[in-house]
């Protein structure tokens, strides 16, 4: 299954990148993500709670291996997730481009195999849920971006590693691929 699309953030690319470094922001945007831990250089193991349409949410373990990182422009990754409700595996890439008027254009593309219950029973909602969740998640990030641009929120913690950013983006892509929610 190919999932691709783009999203425009109303803010500069570096700020978007930095914002995506903040796991608290992402936790709000992606309530399905429970943990994400760096277990090796460029490798992250995480836990999510995933459900699709009629498939009740189940625990989902995720491994993400990052590749070809060019901060703050792009990276790609190998995604491998499995749980009682199925699996997903494949590659995803995310690209951030400076756009007109100081905006940032995010392009994403994932080529993933989906299997098990998610594939068999969740198919009818994969597309629409995927679109809805991606939009929801990215809009939440964009809202946070707006509030920071207007100074309404504290500045992001700068001390986070770049891996958090990459891993967070991986989660974005993974959510896109898994079409995640609603998180029940």
């Amino acid at each position, binding site marked *: *299954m190919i999932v691709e699309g783009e999203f425009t953030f109303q803010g500069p690319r570096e700020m978007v990148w930095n914002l995506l470094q903040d796991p608290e922001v992402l936790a709000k945007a992606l309530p399905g993500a429970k943990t994400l831990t760096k277990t090796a250089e460029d490798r992250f193991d995480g836990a999510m709670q995933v459900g699709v349409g*009629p498939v009740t949410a*189940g*625990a989902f373990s995720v491994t993400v291996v990052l590749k070809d990182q060019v901060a703050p422009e792009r990276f790609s990754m190998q995604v491998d997730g*499995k*749980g*009682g409700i*199925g*699996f997903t*595996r494949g590659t995803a890439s995310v690209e951030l481009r400076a756009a007109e008027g100081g905006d940032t254009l995010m392009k994403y593309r994932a080529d993933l*195999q*989906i*299997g*098990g*219950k998610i*594939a*068999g*029973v969740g*198919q*009818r909602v994969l597309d629409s849920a995927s679109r809805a969740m991606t939009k929801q998640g990215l809009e939440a990030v964009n809202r946070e971006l707006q509030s920071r641009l207007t100074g309404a929120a504290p500045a992001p913690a700068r001390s986070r590693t770049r891996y958090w950013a990459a891993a967070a983006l991986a989660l974005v892509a993974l959510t896109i691929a898994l079409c995640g929610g609603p998180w029940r």
Partner: protein
Amino acid sequence: MIGRSPPRNEDAALLTGRALFVDDVHLEGMLHVAFLRSDHAHARLIAVDASSARGRPGVVAVYTAVDLGDYWQPGPLLVPPPPIPGLTFHAATQVPLVKDKARHAGEPIAMVVAENRYLAEDALEHIVVDLEPLDAVVDLEAALAPGAPVIHQQLGSNLAAHVVQHKGDYRQARAQADRVIARRFRYDRGAAAAIENRGLVTHWDARAGELTVWDTTQAPIPLRNGLARMLGLLESQVRVIAPFVGGGFGPKIMMFYPEEVLLPWAAMRLRRPLKWIEDRQENFYATSQEREQIHDAELAVTKDGRILGVRDIFLHDTGAYDTYGLTIPINSQCTLLGPYQVANYDSEFKVVFTNKPIVTPVRGAGRQHGVFVMERLLDIAARELKLDPVEIRRRNYLSPDAFPHDHVILFQDSAPLVYDSGNYRPALERATAAVGYDGFQAERARARAEGRRVGVGIVSYVEGTGIGPYEGARVTVEPSGEVRVATGVGTQGQGHFTTLAQVVADVLAVDAARVHVVTGDTREFHWGTGTFASRSAVVAGSACHAAALAVRDKILKLAGLLLEALPAELELAGGAVQVKSDRGRSMSFGELAVRANPLRGAVRPGTEPGLEATAYFGPDRGSTASGVHAIVVEVDPETAMVKILRYVVVHDCGRVINPVVVQGQIQGGVAQGIGNAFYEQLVWDTNGQLKNASFMDYLVPTATDVPKVETHHIETPSPLNPLGVKGVGEAGCIPTAAAFAQAVEDALSEYGLEICDIPLSPNRLFELIRAAEAAGAAGAAARQTGGAAGAAKR
């Protein structure tokens, strides 16, 4: 009693909720089973760790392949291939639990036994499985391409079988033909979708040394025999009961499903009764499926539409294993010939392993594919030759004096394909009259003037039914005067409790309601095979008939002694024997039954106690049923929705035992055929993942999709059995797709589209309509020039 439609004996129990289905069996101390199944269609199994699951509350046991030890064995090959010269066949049968490799999504890896199903399913999530995904084989042609991933390593390729059968000399026929019609046809995969999923309950009584298995099987006796062999028990120690079964349609005769191997074994080890009931999602992976074939076929005809020969080369998808042998593709190969005179026939097929659930017969069992190919070729030939589609069929029918007709090739039961009897023209004429075929041109024009597009389709088919090897029956007159019949076939709604009762009631001249049939319990009767291939009425019915005749002889003999009359002077009526010339001298069956089982005195040599007899019937070969389906549809080219306005079936299943039951079988078969033709398709992605594993996405026809079917009976009795009957269980669904395609094309005749793929979903029809519109004038021009364009392979 034969030829009438009494109320069904089984209905009271079914209507009030008293009828026992497998899931209704409740035993003290019963544990529940759930299976962990592969999410991958093709993957190497590296490791399974069930330790965490084993420690969960309520979990009694978890088994993986290694836990089975020597009990882990691939299942038996159920149907060895017929002795066709030059045939290649590679057997690869299913295994109880994945040991080295998962070969289709849903293949079981581990079995959890717990105090209830909820806890068993909870535990599944705690089994850690390490699977290394492999590239999956999904497409039939890609499966045979060089370099394709190989599913069964020991075979070296994905070729399961290669079979060639010839009749006459097709090459010469082709050379003489005025026209050769060549097309590619596809028939995609579907599910039987019985509303009751599979299931079983197993109970090992250690004190009695008896294993009891309640199973939703169509074949309880072979299941018992196989289980005894696998478990090292006497056959008499195993009792298999197929109680009421909620629809079979073929997959419930497949054996041995992994669950059928595992639950009896585990029940004996754990000394607790076990229950497993398949859920609907599992059913889409764990129960066998059918239908995927690709045919490259051609028809050689004269300019007046006479068939000179047919060539058909096809691929058949057997899924991950080929346990059921070649039954389905040989059915396709043989049934293609239909009711027609085909002097020259070249047929070749390859059976292909793919990473999809196992394929075994589903109602029709490949016959519909052959019918679809032949009927479509005739339709296209008629169009190109400017002949009426009905007329081209009429010109090619075998004549009534052509029987028995030997088609030279071998049928799936290893017997030569010989039609025992048939008379096809009357069915065609009856169908054309019933559907108003002669006036249909005017009706089509009238509808067209109103902006509606209607079309008619009329197709023919034959169906090989009632094959051997044999069935048996025991008929007993009890002291109450009630009659009991035991037979080995299972029953899944066909009405055996009534139709078999009618056969016996007819011989014994009693009311069918007084004949109590028991089927599907090996304790009651343990010789026979099962319910499949539209054979129960033919084979079990004939056995019941023979046993009833033997009981009738005993009744007459004993009554002759007691009433002091010769048997020839006696007659049976109303559950009693009477002297024809003096009806006051009579004895009831009950009284005779008591006298036949005396408490004192000796049973004389050469006689047996009781009014009971057992008999068997085994036909040399099947009896050939036939028929014509006519359909009228209205198609909306904007939405591609098809509405069925009329559906007429003229059916010849020989002598009809119960017209209402036959009508019901046909009506239900047509509904399934409509599903096959228009709605039902299992959709796989390129990794072998099923994309519509629920009734939300796999569309079984509802009451608003299925039309009223007008059924007409024509009776050409079979000479191969004493009742003259032929099978009817599958007839309704066999020609439906062909009729549907012809009618839709007719309704859209100005588009000149051709329907070569089934199912024809509204989406696919929409695409065909749009493509035809785009082809537009060019297409029209090509049709004008005819020949070359028409004969080109698509």
